[in-house]
């Protein structure tokens, strides 16, 4: 869990304000879910392929962390190819399965879309340090610091869940009640975990109050969250990818607004 909470700030990309990364990833995702066509997703993916090598993520890390996206894309394609809305020539049909030109086209569009949204999101998010994100949300986007910092401090406790669960399991075996009633035991442990978390959360809240959290003065920030040239570049890259996808797609006549279907 350490790796999730403390991300090394090694490369230029790691130092870019997380808010910029969030905006860039969101821009691409919003534009690409507005339409389902091969061209827009294909163009976005192509431009991303040119830009991603500059993100400063090591190849090995890239492939490991984006593996779920690479697995999800063909699975989504397969499902849509088999069960998607049929259209044009039907190649194969059995029970609910209809593989047609229409469903194959839709399948390709979907899998490209999963990659075009998934890959940049993963690459941008694995370089985000939670503390930096909280600083950015509170200082750049001016979200209420009480909630942002509360959530940040609470995240640390999530890492303890796995440890607690293992201890609860061992404890039930030690008490002699681990042979039967699997479902009941699971529910009991889930409840115990909830109780432990609430207690820990309230202890943390006391500790934070003890450090003047919520004091009636204007809070200062030890770490400045900057939004400068590097941040605008990342946001611009997101906009560029989204804009190119729309322009090429509309120009080739393949843009199909999802609401218009």
């Amino acid at each position: 869990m350490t790796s999730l909470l403390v991300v090394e700030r090694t490369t230029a990309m790691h130092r870019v304000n997380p808010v910029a990364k969030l905006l860039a990833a969101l821009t691409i995702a919003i534009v690409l879910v507005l339409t389902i066509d091969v061209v827009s997703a294909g163009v976005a993916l192509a431009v991303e392929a040119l830009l991603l090598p500059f993100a400063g993520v090591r190849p090995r890390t890239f492939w490991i962390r984006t593996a779920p996206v690479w697995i999800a894309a063909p699975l989504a394609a397969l499902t849509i190819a088999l069960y998607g809305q049929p259209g044009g020539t039907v190649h194969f049909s059995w029970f609910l399965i209809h593989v047609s030109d229409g469903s194959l086209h839709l399948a390709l569009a979907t899998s490209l879309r999963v990659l075009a949204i998934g890959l940049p999101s993963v690459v941008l998010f694995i370089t985000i340090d939670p503390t930096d994100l909280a600083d950015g949300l509170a200082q750049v986007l001016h979200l209420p610091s009480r909630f942002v910092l509360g959530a940040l401090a609470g995240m640390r406790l999530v890492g303890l869940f796995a440890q607690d669960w293992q201890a609860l399991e061992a404890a039930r075996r030690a008490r002699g009640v681990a042979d039967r009633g699997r479902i009941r035991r699971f529910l009991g442990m889930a409840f115990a975990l909830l109780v432990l978390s609430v207690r820990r959360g309230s202890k943390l809240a006391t500790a934070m109050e003890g450090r003047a959290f919520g004091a009636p003065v204007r809070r200062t920030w030890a770490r400045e969250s900057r939004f400068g040239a590097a941040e605008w570049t990342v946001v611009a890259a997101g906009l560029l990818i989204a804009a190119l996808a729309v322009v090429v797609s509309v120009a080739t006549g393949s843009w199909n607004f999802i609401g218009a279907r």
Partner: protein
Amino acid sequence: MLLLGASGAGKSTFLQAAAGILGGADEGEEQGEMLLDGRPAAEQRGRAGLVMQDPDAQVVLARVGDDVAFGCENLGVPRDEIWSRVAEALDAVGLDLPLDRATSELSGGQKQRLALAGILAMRPGLVLLDEPTANLDPDGVREVRDAVARMIERTGATLIVIEHRVGTWVDLVDRVVVLEPGGGVRADGSPAGVLGERGDELAAGGVWVPGHEPAHPSRRRAYGEVLLSGTDLGVGRRSTVSSGIDFEVRRGRVLAVTGPNGAGKSTLALTVGGLLPPREGRVIASPALAGGIGADPQRWRSRDLVSRIGSVFQDPEHQLLAATLAEELAVGPRVVGADAATISRVTDELLVRLRLDHLALANPFTLSGGEKRRLSVATALATAPPVLVLDEPTFGQDARTWAELVALLAELLDEGTAVVAVTHDALFVDALADDRLVLAGSVLGSQERGMSQ
């Protein structure tokens, strides 16, 4: 100033009031007023800083520097000044770590010093410590005590500390106040005066007074047959934390497992207790213990385990199952098929023995830390297993309950129970240990046999 008093006398509540974080009228009743520099404490956030017992509950942020800076930020200190205060505070508590070190990687003693630094950076006039060393190993206790001593010397802040183990702080304080349960002050004066005049009385009330340590119980030291053994054992969860461990657990003897935090003592306790598979080697139960169900405790069913090896965990809250103490104690006996009369006799006896009988119908979660620990020991005793595996059995006990627990264990040992105890408590080792196993992380652990007869 050292603040003493029996459990429930209101020591922690007093400190929280002084820190101004006691909460509003909806969270309880309040009489009188708590003034800091002549003004209500709750209006002066940051004037008093509080460090509590649990090292894990006080870390707020993920990096050392950010965590120390947190209090300053909340007080609206300008950015440049924050970082100079952070450096100063870390230096004052002797934490020589990079500012971006992950707080999750710190030891218990380091976490407590970090919490202290976080308070110091706020430049409080009053530093409040609520049993800051209760969960630490002896090295951690020394670290924290020295850090506090250095801090007082440098800042001239006022210190109020609550601690059962008076010896840790007695050289540092110039006033001792003893609170009276139910209200009021029982004693107030210089350490020599209060501890000298009222040493016996305080010790009888559970305070650890130097020179008034509880007596060791007398025992018939036996050299019984081997019930459990391990050779060249390696323990760990995802990776091996300690290996090459050899040990024997004998009837009527205590095997004390010691070593620094993180050496794998608790992991070993789980492995010996048949709750975690060893990574190397085997734990073997002798036929006398196994009684015909195979020599590997890992493979026993849960209800066969409970009548053979009783385990008590470091955190008692993990082991609580029932809504009342009486039901909690009945769980084990019911699993092994005891009849109703036996169950109620066993639970009643244990409740009285461990001074929990007035709480029989209370919810286990509402007990104090020390009471929870005694309860979890009692749950393991309820099925009278021949082997007991105890992880820090004396944590949070005052001198009186400590003595009772040790006496109870001595009695069980004389009746032939074998005990494996993971502990930092040197007094406990002195009082009971027959054999010792010292773990030192990845280094080989070897058992040295103390043949004190």
